[in-house]
């Protein structure tokens, strides 16, 4: 799930002084939980974060696609590459703003390329500040409040599915 070259993933944040009271060239990331692990990704590809909508499950077995939902008229696939997040039956019965295992499930909508948008289910989504050293480091994780979060690159996750 981790890309070998994550340096480009994180870009310097704009005027971080205003938001974080620091003049350092920190970068903005997004942390979230997926399965039983915590991840951190760049906000570069993130289009929006939404409450979990009603998802229509894909009627035939697929490797990575849970289902689809309507985002303002666009059909967006919901991906679950690890296949362990939630049972598809639960997904089908889910309504907007669904809560699974007492946690509020959200969708991170990534725009990988023009007309190529995918949504990724995640818990406990939040914005975080990442030091440039950590962002550019070859190490596969980033510490947030002392907790290691695996670096997450949506392009690597989707792998061969990206045309």
């Amino acid at each position, binding site marked *: 799930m981790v890309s070998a070259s994550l340096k480009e993933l994180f870009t310097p944040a704009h005027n971080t002084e205003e938001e974080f009271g620091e003049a350092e060239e920190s970068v903005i990331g997004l942390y979230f939980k997926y399965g039983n692990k915590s991840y951190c990704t760049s906000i570069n590809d993130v289009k929006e974060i939404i409450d979990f909508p009603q998802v229509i499950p894909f*009627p035939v077995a697929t*490797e990575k696609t849970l289902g*689809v939902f309507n985002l303002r008229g666009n059909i967006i696939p919901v991906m679950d590459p690890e296949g362990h997040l939630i049972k598809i039956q639960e997904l*089908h019965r889910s309504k907007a703003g669904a809560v699974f295992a007492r946690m509020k499930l959200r969708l991170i909508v990534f725009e990988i390329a023009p007309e*190529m948008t995918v949504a990724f289910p995640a818990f406990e989504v939040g914005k975080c500040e990442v030091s440039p050293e950590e962002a550019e480091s070859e190490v596969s994780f980033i510490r947030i409040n002392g907790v290691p979060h695996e670096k997450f690159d949506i392009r690597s996750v989707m792998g061969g599915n990206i*045309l």
Partner: protein
Amino acid sequence: MHDELLNDFLEESIDLIEKVKVNLASWNQQENKAETIDNIYRWVHTIKGGCAIFEYKETAHIAHELETFLGTLRQKADSVTPAELKRVEEGILAIESTFNEDSTCEPIFTTEPEVTEVQAESEPNFKFKTEYFKEWMEDSEAITKDLYHDGFRFFEIKLPAALSEKILAKLQEYEVFTLDTYQKEEETFCLCSINLKATPEFEEKANLIIKHYNGNWCELIEEKPAETKVDKPVASAEAAPSSSAPVRSAPNAAVTQEVLRVPLATVNSILDHIWELFLVRNQMAHLFKENKHIFKEHLSFIQQFESIDNVIERNIHELESKTMSLRLNPIKKIFDRMNKVVSEYCNQNKKDIQLITSGEGIDLDKKVLDQLNEPLIHLIRNAIDHGVEKPEDRRKAGKPVKGRVELSAQLQGNEVCIVVGDDGKGIDAKKILESAKRKNLDVSHITNDQEAVNLIFAPGFSTAEQVTDVSGRGVGMDAVKKSIQELGGNITIETVVGQGSKFKINLPLTMSVSKCLVVDIRGLEYAFSTKSVVFVEKISVNQLKKNGEDQYYEFNGKLIPCFTLGEVLPDYREEPDLPSSYTHICVTSLNGQEVAFRVDEILQTMNIVMKPLPKIVERHKYIAGVSILPGGNPIFLLNIQECLTGIMSNKRGEFHGKRVA
């Protein structure tokens, strides 16, 4: 109709010229230079074909030369020199400039200063460029007065002689009457009149005419009248034109309907907002439902809220439906163009051919329709040029002298089938094979006639002895196949030597509207085209006949196999084991055989615009596409034929498995 065709041609040509320019500008960045050259070649070929139809002879000539030059570049796409690119660029600019010249040619409506005044007694002043019309007006004073009182206005126009016939025909289409004409050197002068009372949108009409032939608005030559005696305000001084301003008159919707051209992106953007509104309304309704108990003491509030919510919901649906319809165009639009193509090419080829069309009522999304235009023109050209024989040959073959070209569209299951057929000489597989060998094409894989015939889709293949304005370079069929494939469809040929050929284009209903049945199968909603089914019925499960695991349904007095669609679809029922005493049966045709299939519930029928699956999602043969229900939820569209084939295949597998065991 002619003006629409010409307008379409000009718009299309301008688009293609732009495409060529963009591709040339980014030549160094192009990864597949051979494909780029092929594309440019195809676009120039299309422009040339259109020029031939609309008699842009000079442009057609330049396009022909450029096409020939591009033909040489196709052989060495990766080693094209900057000088050669420059030459292509010059060629395309030359084509563009001829369109511009046509658009800036002598204005139809002249406003030359050296005009002669003609005064009719107590009537408005008219200024005319020519003495001829001054005399004409004086001679016909009584007539002009009467006409003026009836709301007619006069103006003089000057036309390039070569185009005068065409323009005059167009003026008649717009209810502009030509009173007299005379020719001087290379120009034709006309005295025209228009009844402003009958056609208050004259300015728009005149603009349309001028856009087609001039590109510039030119003012009428008629002067503002000194005194008017017309009965109605619409033809009063306000409505009468002046030399400094175009005619402006009060809109009168009862006479003509105004048309507004809107970019497709704007329509799509509006749809996005409507769907967003859908979701917000759904959320609002959901929120209210969840908290309804709070208002249990206020029944009138609940009733009013629900009533207002119903109105909002209905209006959103209406709004969505109307906006969606903006993107649809009848296939008739293309078919009408083909009529023009046939008549023009028949004139050029000295052939007598009748175009027979059917299925014009089918609506297709504009995107599909636009991309379909070019392939259809190529197929029609080929049918005329290579298919239908010359009259003397037809007579010898015992065929009617008048040839037939058929153009039909039909919904077939989840596809639109468009057929371009002719009753000509057919395609001789042997000749095709020989020609392919002569051209050093790879024919090693050819094992039968059908495969040999399919060689006409090979790049650069052509059997024509002569390259004509119409066809014969072999670029057409290659381009046709490519365009159809880009739309996710395929093209096949049926041909009988001496009897004719049929080119069948099957296109998925992507982006096209179809009436669908929305059904429930094992707890999930699906849709499929009503064209897939010939009969539906709700029956008791006991009415099905059984033979072991197999089920049969009695239809029209005979037993037909009955399958359960749920066998190939997942189970999302909350209580899967709950037996149902009734079922819904749909009857369809599979490989020419009537078969029935069961669904749990038929929920409704509705018109659906099918969208392709997101690019990133794996394709599956059971899923034809996806759409969005009025409530905002996506719904998968099933390919019934594939589902049933899958069920039958599973059954055969089980049967053979059991026998082996």
